[in-house]
């Protein structure tokens, strides 16, 4: 049982590490590609900005979580 707990903890840590890399990459991508556009949008078109803001933050949460899960499954497969 202790081995099972250690294994699931390792799996959780690995998944978290992949997620951390993706989340950080996502932020820099948004900053680099959309930084100026977001600034312009915020000053000139508030309603689209509000929608984009929610989509960006939800995207970071949902999409990256799903990508992490898929990546993690793919990475685990060769070890089995």
């Amino acid at each position, binding site marked *: 049982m202790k081995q099972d707990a250690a294994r699931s903890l390792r799996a*959780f840590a690995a998944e978290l590490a992949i997620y951390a890399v993706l*989340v950080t990459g996502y932020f820099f991508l948004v900053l680099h590609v959309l930084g100026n556009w977001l600034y312009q949008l915020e000053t000139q078109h*508030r309603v689209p900005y*509000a929608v984009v803001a*929610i989509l960006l933050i939800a995207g970071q949460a949902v999409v990256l979580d799903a990508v992490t899960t898929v990546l993690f499954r793919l990475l685990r497969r060769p070890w089995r």
Partner: protein
Amino acid sequence: MFFPISNSHINPVYLVVVGFVIGILGGFFGVGGSFIAGPALRLMGVDWNYAVGTDLAHIVGKSIVAARKHRTLGNVDLKLGMIMALGTIAGAEGGAQLIQALKRAGNVNSVVSWVAIVVYLGISIFMFWESYATLRLHKGRSRRTVSDVKVVESKADHSAFGPVTKKIQRMKIWPMISLPTSGIQISLWIILVVAVVGGFFSGFLGGGAGYIRMPSMVYVLGVPTHLAVGTDLFEIVISASYGTFTHAIKGNVDILIALVMHTGAVIGAQIGVVATQYFAGPKIRLAFVPLPLIGAAIVIYTLVTGHKF
């Protein structure tokens, strides 16, 4: 790092660390963490309006991650969360209207501060008494130490306030709602009252008001603590999205700051969620006690020194 939307310079590492801490608290206790995030952003010179709006935006993302994780662990009652979201939004509007009325009367700061102190202290004292009494009551009953059994048993919930909760559940006010996930049957009106009160304090005191909603779900509705945490987070996703949208339209959201905070918050939230699996309900509630106290301490500090975070 310069954030042009809010016109502020903030070290991104600071934002990630703040997000991480709030993420752990959010995942573990089901709170938004605005009582830390708001002052933390103010400390870096971000204007109050941006601090409030940006904080809400990052709460949306963090709560999505934490609620999804809680759902995979069976800790989210979707039906209850959807009903409560309606009441929360209505209550938040009421709280915001009262703030506007107090603004016009010219005594908004003192009234909000004193209400916040009373509410925060009240929650802390009550939860300390209840969780401590529950732990004493059930001491010795769950002294099995095998690790796997401990994890399974930890979801079983007891409360010294249980008899009062049972009386509330027995109030047959039509329509009665059955919540199989939470294992309770209760009047729709009682759920709505809890949601409206939580929403009211969210609009009145700011943030997601998880510090009121989570204990209310446990003590008034009788929802097990783990489910209350998960369902509260699900409900926060809806209410904080609404808040983010309205604040963004008013020009109060710096999405780039929110995204940096979010990088730390989502990691912390996942750790917080997994940690709940290793603690029984009363222990989670006892650990919750210092959170409203921190909020009260911040308000008392601002009252005494006149310094606004």
